[in-house]
């Protein structure tokens, strides 16, 4: 299933990037571009060839991970992506983890205290969390931490494997901003699933046995609720990567988004095209990975097996 999807995604990016085929060279050079220079650029990008040839060549090159070279620094685009993608993945994973750590307990408590104060507060916050644009939340977090605790995240990126504390300090605000909408959705899901489970027979039995609240919530309510919750969290990964691009821009982080914007600003056409294609395919693969994980978590969902 993944391969046709990847081909469709690559075709989509190819077609979109060629919506104005004649203008690529022109837009790179601007008004002052001489006709011979325009020709040169078109030759270098292979834009003078028939569209079908360009398309097949594009698929072949993407298939062999040949993403072309940048116009600006002559570096292979793949090398640039490799040095940047770590941060974006780091950010997306961290915000997923933070999001889940907040959302699951919040949803559980809201379900347990249904229609009481904690539940109302929860509902307001979750609606707000879904509506607020993540870049605005990022700005607000930056403002609040700058004003009240005088904390501004450090600039230079260090990977979590070399300096975990530094990494956390740098990415905590962006991760919160990015994770909020996901957390809100996951928390709502947790709440509604837990509400169902709380009304089930085995939970009533557990109450009747005289088990404590904590034991019931953790052992009997939380466990069966986790699978649908993870489904929602997984389906949010694509959105997280898209959102990461904007949040990176707020915090000036040199991730995949940063690469894309620098390339757009200097009209580095090969880099823009390859980065967009990479990001899109990456998301498809992440989604596939999430799908495969369900099989591990729930023995009932084994893809490709007869029931």
């Amino acid at each position, binding site marked *: 299933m993944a391969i*046709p*999807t990847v*081909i*469709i*995604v690559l*075709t*989509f*990016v190819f077609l*979109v*990037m*060629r*919506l*104005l085929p004649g203008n690529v060279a022109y837009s790179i050079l601007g008004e002052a571009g001489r006709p011979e220079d325009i020709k040169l650029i078109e030759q270098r990008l292979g834009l003078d060839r028939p569209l079908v040839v360009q398309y097949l060549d594009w698929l072949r090159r993407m298939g062999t991970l040949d993403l072309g070279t940048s116009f600006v620094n002559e570096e292979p685009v793949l090398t640039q992506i490799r040095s940047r993608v770590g941060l974006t993945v780091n950010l997306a994973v961290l915000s997923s983890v933070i999001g889940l750590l907040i959302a699951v307990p919040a949803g559980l408590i809201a379900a347990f205290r249904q229609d009481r104060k904690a539940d109302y507060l929860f509902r307001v916050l979750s*609606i*707000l969390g*879904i*509506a*607020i*644009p993540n*870049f*605005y939340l990022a*700005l*607000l977090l*930056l*403002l609040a931490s*700058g*004003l009240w605790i005088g904390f501004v995240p450090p600039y230079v990126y260090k990977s979590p494997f070399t300096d975990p504390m530094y990494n956390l300090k740098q990415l905590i605000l962006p991760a919160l901003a990015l994770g909020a909408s996901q957390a809100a959705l996951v928390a709502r899901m947790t709440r509604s699933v837990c509400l169902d489970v709380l009304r089930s027979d085995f939970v009533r039995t557990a109450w009747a046995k005289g088990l404590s609240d904590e034991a019931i919530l953790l052992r009997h309510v939380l466990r069966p609720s986790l699978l649908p919750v993870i489904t929602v969290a997984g389906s949010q990964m*694509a*959105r997280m*990567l*898209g*959102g990461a*691009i*904007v949040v990176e*821009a*707020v*915090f*000036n982080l040199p991730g995949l988004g940063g690469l*894309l*914007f620098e390339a*757009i600003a200097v009209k580095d056409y090969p880099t*823009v095209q390859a980065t*967009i294609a990479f*990001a*899109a395919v990456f*998301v*498809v693969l992440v*989604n596939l990975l999430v799908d495969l994980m369900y099989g591990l978590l729930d023995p009932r969902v084994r893809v490709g097996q007869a029931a």
Partner: protein
Amino acid sequence: MRGTAAERKLDVPAERVSPSLRLLARSWREVQRRPLGAVSLATVLLLLTVSAAAPLIATHAPTDIDVYQKWRPPSSTHLLGTDSLGRDVWSRLVWGGRISLAVGFGAAFIGTTVGALIGLISGFLLGRVDLVVQRVVDGVQSIPALISALAFVYALGPSWITLSLAIGVPILAIAARVMRSTTVVLREEVYVEAARALGGSDAYVVTRHIAPNSVAPYMVLLTAHIAWAIVIEASLGFLGLGIPPPTPTWGGMLVGAQKELLFAPWTVIVPGTVITVAALAFNLAGDAIRDSFDPRLQQ
């Protein structure tokens, strides 16, 4: 067939209630039942009115630059202060609403309508057409909306129309999917079978039975996506990829906001809060509309 069964039974109406009055009474019941939805709907109307009345209520021209007046905090001359070029924030806000709301509506309308038509055809024909369409929709849907919108804007250049298209495409994929599943259910209904047995053609069945019954899910998709489109437009604007300056837009007002945050917070908080309120209001209004369309929730 004229009128519902209930109306036909009352062949001599005891009191003639005009249809508009009946609608008003029904609306009032809905307002009482869903106060949150009513407030959101009122907020949506307020936002629309303010944007429509921009020339009347803006105190300054939104593009007037006055470098001697830059970063002035809110005052009686500048209700919401001024930005880094001394432009009046309130005036930019009301004018900016026009673009942001227009793109929000435009994108939601284009995406939902085209997507709904695709889904309707795909779900009605099924077979090979459906298989191909659904694979393509899957592919488009798997691309993060912001990245796909970015690619479109990069290729086509930013304008009201291209932004609506760029944001409409990811919506299209979702709409096509939802509409397909609605149609697949509808085409198996007994009344569709009856229409076919009476010799109704495909075109007749689609236009007289399937399309009218798809209006409610269509409306729900449309309203739900307006909020979403407003936020994406704002994100693109914030990244400097929206309508280019000097035209004011809500997202565009936030370009470079992180640099002004600490000493001129009003230039950030005002447009940011309005975007959030707009997204919230459209979201909740959409929910309320969905609920009042849902017969299972009617008492």
